[in-house]
């Protein structure tokens, strides 16, 4: 049995949580995660960020002290570099986030990384989908996953295994509490309600899918707090219980709430927004139950980072998403599929030369499917519109940087040289520039091979000769447009990989 010790640190708004897990695989390659340590270090980074927009020096120092203890814990289990320390909105939204990250690195050697809101939401979705009993059934009927954290609320609307809408909005419980901290306690709830009602209104107006939802699933520490209060025996909270509690405490001060509900001051401070966000979303979709998974974020992170190594499965899911979003913009599905098949074949056949990394492959898949999505808006400038549409997407689990790379590749996939004109492109690091060049080079070849959008070429084979890459294509008719585009677009390939690529057409007569 293979085992591995993995550490996860979740730097959240109200605490830093450290989880050390043992991962073992049995002879059937089934993974078992055993939590060895789970430690919560209370630290209100969010109070700083959401009120002052930066993390105070005092909090930075306190965090460094906590990380010294975490380092000791890592040493105890011989973790070495086998960990992920992840910052969410409290650090992500702070002006001095880089100072914070640098200070922790200098003082403890622990590397922190910021995950974007979409990725955070996706990780939580994965966690809920794995552990919430009956999730598949709920998802098939339409569900909204509400990830209500201290800083933001992540909304993910899903139906039939597909994410219909995903967005993160600044309606976190602590953020709301901080926003109206100057209002008298007795009437504060009215301010919360007005603000949260706006959120529901926005959701209703902006998404036509909203009426397809039947159930609400809550996640993050907000549901942890409700769990602590209600201690439900099943995996849901009843809206009547939530509403009763809300009406009982809405005019009461945080200190009284803390005493009455036996929760700490921080929790007492956020309980009113937490309750009202859930109640109002539930009411807006007519849901009677708020489902939850009792798996914590650290556990979800552990599972996510271990699962990420399974690229095949992840990319398969992504392909579904790319097509789903593409279809919304009248994507030429057949062309997209053809380009995807060809680009994958090029990548596989020339793997020793092209050396495509996992994230580059993801971007290549995305670009192969979505590069022409801009036709929906404008045929002539479709490259630009493709880029814009791709930028506007929120794809669960997909890094923003990868999505941006897909956008760049779509922008530059034409035969003309447009990179020189793009300011954003020149701000990229040399490494990222190379990534984009690699993807574009492959994408252009694959796109050229279906330049007519007619799928004239049935199959391709690639051969790496001594000083040449030979692409042999099989077609029933001479593919004039493809041959022409191939000539125009193969220049990038030579410039990027230093080897020319040539086309050889074999006609396949019936």
């Amino acid at each position: 049995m293979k085992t591995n010790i993995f550490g996860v640190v979740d730097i959240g708004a109200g605490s830093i949580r450290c989880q050390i897990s043992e991962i073992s695989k049995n002879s059937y390659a089934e993974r078992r995660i055993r939590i060895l340590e789970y430690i919560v270090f209370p630290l209100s980074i969010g109070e700083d960020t959401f009120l002052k927009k930066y993390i105070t020096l005092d909090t930075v120092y306190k965090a460094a002290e906590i990380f010294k203890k975490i380092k000791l814990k890592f040493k105890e289990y011989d973790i070495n570099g086998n960990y992920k320390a992840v910052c969410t909105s409290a650090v992500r939204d702070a002006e001095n986030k880089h100072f914070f990250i640098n200070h922790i690195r200098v003082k403890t050697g622990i590397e922190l990384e910021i995950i974007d809101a979409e990725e955070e939401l996706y990780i939580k979705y994965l966690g809920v989908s794995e552990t919430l009993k009956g999730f598949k059934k709920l998802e098939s009927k339409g569900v909204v996953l509400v990830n209500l954290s201290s800083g933001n609320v992540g909304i993910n609307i899903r139906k039939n295994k597909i994410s219909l809408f995903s967005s993160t909005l600044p309606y976190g419980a602590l953020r709301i509490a901080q926003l109206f901290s100057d209002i008298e306690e007795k009437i504060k709830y009215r301010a919360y309600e007005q603000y949260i009602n706006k959120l529901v209104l926005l959701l209703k107006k902006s998404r036509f899918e909203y009426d397809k939802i039947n159930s609400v699933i809550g996640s993050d520490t907000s549901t942890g707090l409700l769990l602590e209060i209600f201690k439900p025996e099943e995996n849901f909270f009843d809206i009547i219980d939530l509403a009763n509690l809300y009406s009982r405490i809405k005019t009461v001060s945080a200190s009284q709430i803390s005493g009455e509900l036996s929760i700490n001051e921080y929790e007492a401070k956020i309980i009113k927004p937490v309750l009202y966000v859930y109640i109002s979303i539930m009411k807006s979709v007519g849901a009677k139950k708020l489902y939850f998974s009792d798996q914590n974020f650290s556990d979800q992170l552990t599972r996510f980072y271990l699962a990420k190594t399974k690229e095949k499965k992840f990319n398969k899911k992504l392909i579904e998403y790319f097509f789903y979003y593409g279809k919304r913009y009248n994507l030429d599905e057949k062309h997209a599929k053809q380009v995807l098949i060809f680009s994958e074949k090029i990548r596989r056949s020339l793997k020793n030369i092209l050396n495509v990394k996992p994230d580059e492959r993801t971007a290549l898949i995305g670009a192969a499917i979505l590069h022409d999505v801009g036709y929906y808006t404008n045929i002539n400038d479709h490259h630009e519109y493709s880029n814009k549409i791709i930028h506007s997407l929120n794809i669960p689990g997909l890094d923003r940087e990868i999505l941006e790379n897909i956008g760049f590749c779509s922008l530059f996939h034409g035969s003309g040289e447009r990179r020189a004109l793009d300011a954003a492109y020149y701000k990229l690091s040399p490494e990222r520039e190379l990534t984009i060049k690699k993807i574009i080079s492959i994408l252009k070849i694959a796109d050229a091979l279906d330049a007519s959008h007619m799928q004239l070429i049935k199959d391709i084979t690639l051969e790496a000769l001594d000083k040449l890459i030979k692409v042999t294509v099989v077609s029933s008719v001479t593919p004039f447009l493809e041959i022409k585009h191939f000539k125009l677009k193969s220049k990038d390939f030579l410039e990027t990989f230093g080897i020319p690529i040539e086309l050889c057409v074999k006609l396949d007569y019936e």
Partner: protein
Amino acid sequence: MNSIGKYNYNNRELSWLDFNERVLMQAADEAVPMCERLKFLAIHCANLDEFFMIRVAGLKDLVSAGYKEKDIYGFTPPEILEEISCRVNSQVKKNAEIFQSLSLKLSKLNIEILPTEMLDMEILDEIFYSEISPAITPLIISEIEKIPFIFNLKLCFFVELENENKVFDALIILPENIKKVYKIKKSKKSYYFTPENILERYIDKIFPAYSVKNYFLFRVTRNADLPIKHEDIEDLLSSIEENISERKWSNIVRVEIDREITDALMNKIKHYLNINVNGDYADNDVYTTNHPLNLSFLFNIIEENKSLYYKPFKSSIPDYLKNRSIFDIAKKKDILLFRPCNDFKIISKWIAEAGNDKNVLSIKMTLYRTDKNSKIVEALANAALKGKHVCAVVELKARFDEEKNVKWAKKLEEAGCIVTYGFSDKKIHAKIFLATRKEEGKIVRYAHISTGNYNEYTANIYTDIDYITAEEEACSEISNMFNYMTGYSDIFKWSRIKLAPVNLRQTLSGLIDFEISEAKAGRRAEIIIKVNSVFDAEITDKIYAAGSAGVLVKMIIRGICSIKPGIKDLSENIEVKSIIGRFLEHARIYYFYNGGKEKVFISTADLMTRNLDKRIELFFEIKDHESKKKLMDIIECNIDDDLKSWLLREDKYTFNTREDSKFNCQERICNKFCGEK
């Protein structure tokens, strides 16, 4: 039901004095071998010293602060001090009588303890002139009107001298660095002398220019409670060190004089000790004993005659543990051991084995009271030197062991252990050890949970439970307990273990409430609790409520007990007994019938407010079937004991004097565990 009246609780101090009287009665018990009886006299005396240093000192502080309210037991602080004085005088008198009687009996066996007659022994000259005289510094104090500071429990002679019709007062403080007792063999007789006993014989030689008019031996007891002044102390180690040195200078709470003296002499000593000035002192703070002031030398009476001692006792190692690694056994099944029947070396060797085991990644343990040259401390230091992650949570505030603990802590730090000192406002009383091992790439944790200290000396004389388990949930939560104690966090979910001050009080309440609900529903309900002390109003009321509801409550409480059993309509269903025997009863065991799904727990916690609210205590359910059965056997033996048990009815303890009594639980349990295969 009788409502819980204002004074339906036994007073803590008086209940403790009752306990010490039961200890004293062991010295009077003809069934106990004579030299062992001497030891009980010494224990009684040492217990009283501690009682004055802490409890009486605390009451005196209340008096000084002008606090005069009656407590829930019906006493004001001055009233309770008066009652204490009265009872202590009576006990001291009894102690003296027993000592006299034992001395006479031993004399018939040619053993002379503190002989008073003139003896022609050159060796005494030798001892006095070569050992005692060079070590003492006699002082004439009447000239300077002020005596040097007399440290806590130091023996001193006050001597009134005369020269040319002028009276001079002098002081001889006995040094610490000489033997406690001198044994001289002559004419097939053993003579035992204390240094003060010898010095007294030569007192006129100490001041050659004067004649000795009067003299007496005295000692003072000082307040030894160690308050940590600020809750938020950054460096607990320095704070403790500071407090230890302050303790030596604290106020006097008792003066003992070894013989009747004149009023004039009494006034003089009070004047010198400055104990009349501020009005906090009463005449009853001065105790005239007619008796040696420090009986600790009785522990050093060593004779060859075996009949004077308990039958030699040899702790054993069960066959299934012999020559095998505890790791291998504990991985398959939990291990329950009973001290002192089972050899504590099983544990200390295992800890050493963990330190040397290449697969062990980390070792963590609490250290509350450990012994001189502790092998366990050595093993921890050794493990750290071998590069293991070793974390020792040292409780510096273990009363009277603070100084020793500071030394251990420094030693461990030097070896590279991570030493933490717990909390400034809570004592770490739980006794736990955790070894984390990597076995075939997999993490396996082993925990040792005990009711007793990691102390190889007391392990031979205290009864305690040792429990070793590799149960994953238990070990994981014990790991969290270390995280809690070492200041990582205080946010943990506790389900397998309960701990004070986090959730033990609620847990106990819940368990008792369930028995109450069962009794009210007409079903069998039973609670058996074996602890050292019970002293907490909430718990006492809860137990009264259980008794009133019809729950059968049996309690084996060695020491303080606030419960008054046998009060009509309140505590008729409650039985309380105290077992005082050869070994000090120290294991805490809790049993609840729990509707037939019996629950048995071991713990370091007594049912005292301090244990439930101000200490870190572990309360651990024994789930392993075999171990649970062993514990139930121990409980049963305690209940069946009729040879060493004192029964409490309201506030009076009575000793079972039935002639047909024959069940000694300590013997019975030892026979069981010593013969274990």
